[in-house]
């Protein structure tokens, strides 16, 4: 009995000595679900194979829950996440509040990234995140239908309306266009390229609310005219419904086509394979203003495993792995050279056009209150879309609310 007790004591002592040391070489990776998940899953699988002693935990979360986990974790200093996947619109808040690690303090980040994507990863000249997915809001149209009715690639949103009206009136069962009308982030991201093309904006460069402008009113009036050209129920459309409408041939134009969605356009589930052209968004009084929607990888400032996290991020953003991710999961790369890689262009014919769009991409306002501003704008846009508010009233009230949010 005494011998057994000693043996048990020795085991416990060893466990106490060995386990904590072993447990330190670990990584908790908090990333997105849906189409982004396979990319991180693949990288974890490969990294694990090369580093079998690292204990890796990967979390798949929706956009909202991911933001909550990261923001609450940063405020509470829970040290619960080592690698955080961040929407570029969250980055200003995370960087300004000191919630992320300066990557140059943990070995830096090699690679020639697309400029617009690296710009949103910096704050006060310091690099706090690595561009991971080079997502950008593109524009998609059925080249067969447009050509059939005598239209070329629309250069302006007014051209889009004309083409959509003609096709809708002449093609049975085909809506002229489709967009995401559900309130919140989707309707805002549908609207912003139109707003920017009209020369309007939500927040000025000096951080003031500027949505109550004549340009914004023109943009919103035009945006609301899209509804009559869209499938019934577009007010509830999100990504799935938009993709279905295009792939099933029920809509001729997609006002927005995120590059991470476009991977399935030529797939076996698509009834219009090879017929959808994906290009940069049209302009109007200004040139095209495609919206950047990059996803970044950062290391929370309270992570206990920064060196390991930095190593993982360098692994994921290496040219060979960025290419692998794009080929296998359709998530676009962030390294500029890959958009002209022959294997990638063979699979995704729009990649050169996407690089052009990325080079002129416009990021959403770099303010830490963007989540709130976007929600306010989304609420009022939808009230206008369902006819419960006139465009001018919606913009005036939204602008007042946004000004209030910015003053906090």
């Amino acid at each position, binding site marked *: 009995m005494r011998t057994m007790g000693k043996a048990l004591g020795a085991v416990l002592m060893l466990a106490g000595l060995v386990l904590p040391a072993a447990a330190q070489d670990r990584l908790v990776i908090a990333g997105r679900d849906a189409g982004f998940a396979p990319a991180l899953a693949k990288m974890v699988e490969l990294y694990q194979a090369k580093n079998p002693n690292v204990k890796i935990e990967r979390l798949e979360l929706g956009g*909202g829950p991911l*933001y*909550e986990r990261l*923001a*609450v974790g940063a*405020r509470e200093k829970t040290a619960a996440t080592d690698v955080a996947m961040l929407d570029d619109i969250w980055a200003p808040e995370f960087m300004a509040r000191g919630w992320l690690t300066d990557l140059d303090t943990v070995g830096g980040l090699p690679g020639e990234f697309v400029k617009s994507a690296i710009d949103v990863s910096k704050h006060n000249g310091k690099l706090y995140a690595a561009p991971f997915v080079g997502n950008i809001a593109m524009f998609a149209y059925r080249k067969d239908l447009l050509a059939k009715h005598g239209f070329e690639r629309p250069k302006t949103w007014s051209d889009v309306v004309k083409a959509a009206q003609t096709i809708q009136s002449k093609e049975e069962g085909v809506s002229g266009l489709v967009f995401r009308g*559900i*309130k*919140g982030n989707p309707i805002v991201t549908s609207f912003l390229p139109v707003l920017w093309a009209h020369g309007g904006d939500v927040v000025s460069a000096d951080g003031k609310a500027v949505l109550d402008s004549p340009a914004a009113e023109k943009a919103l009036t035009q945006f609301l005219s899209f509804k009559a050209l869209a*499938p*019934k*129920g*577009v*007010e*509830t459309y999100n990504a799935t419904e938009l993709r279905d409408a295009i792939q099933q041939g*029920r809509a001729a134009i997609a006002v927005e086509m995120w590059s991470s969605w476009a991977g399935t356009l030529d797939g076996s589930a698509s009834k219009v394979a090879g017929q959808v052209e994906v290009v940069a968004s049209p302009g109007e009084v200004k040139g095209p203003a495609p919206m950047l929607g990059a996803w970044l990888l950062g290391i929370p400032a309270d992570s206990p495993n920064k060196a390991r996290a930095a190593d993982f991020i360098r692994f994921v953003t290496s040219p060979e792995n960025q290419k692998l991710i794009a080929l296998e999961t359709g998530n676009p790369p962030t390294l500029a050279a890959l958009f002209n890689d022959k294997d990638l262009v063979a699979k995704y014919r729009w990649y050169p056009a996407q690089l052009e769009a990325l080079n002129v991409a416009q990021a959403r306002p770099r303010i830490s209150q963007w*989540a*709130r501003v976007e*929600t306010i704008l989304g*609420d009022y846009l*939808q*009230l206008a*879309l*369902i006819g*419960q508010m006139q465009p001018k009233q919606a913009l005036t009230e939204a602008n007042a609310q946004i000004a209030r*949010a910015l003053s*906090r």
Partner: protein
Amino acid sequence: MTASRRLLPWLLLTPALLIFAGLTLYPLGRTLALSLFATDYGFENAKFVGLENFRELWDSRFFRQAVTNTVLFTVVSTVLEVAAGLGLALLLDRAFPGRTLIMTLLLAPFVLSTMVVTAIWRAWFHFDLGFLNNLLRTVGLPGVPWLFDPNLALWSIVLVDVWQTAPFAFLIIFAGLRLIPQDVYEAARVDGAGPWRRFRDMTLPLLAPYLFVAALLRSVDSFKLFDKVYAMTGGGPGQATETVSMFVYRQGFRFFDIGLASAAAVVMIAVAGLLAIVYAASLLKGAGR
């Protein structure tokens, strides 16, 4: 009575009281306190603003709409669920072939997770491809804009809630129905009471406590409505399905405007508390205490 005997009940109650204080009173008190501050998290860097957060709520058209929607949803869904539960209980109170199978099928929606239920109904509600509109079109009727008509969306969510949780009301009422002695009905029959009279004067009064419990539990649950709205409409179209829970969630976890979220939560607690007092008073009155 010795001092130790007097102390014994308190001693036995202490663990429960401590848990109640830790899990209920402390969060309530903290929420109430935070509602008086402008803060983006806790009390650190918080600024005392008195009743300013409540004034902001009062001024907010979105909050007023959320309160209206929540109250409407609670009242209508509770009435419909208890009525449906009562109807089903009366139907299934008599023996007939296949009764067990029907009861099992009836209970199925209640055991499904809300996320599964909302996924099913979101597909059924689809304007072009949904099962419901296809059904209507096969009989020559036009499709219904279930989720995108601002005048209809809230009632569509009521329909989903009734489908999922009426079986819960049914279970409570059915249990009560089975406990009513049959000789009461036999005596009534002997006295010449018809089916309607027996239902109105005997079944309903004897079932009243069960109907009350079903209504209490369903209304409290309905008042917290969040998940169905979050998954089906996100509060839209416009503000047509926004609820107080959604408002609190958004202010608290999306914007980290903890003061305003706490103020909204206090309003919610006050309304729910009022509801509970009405129910409790009625229950105690019914019990003759």
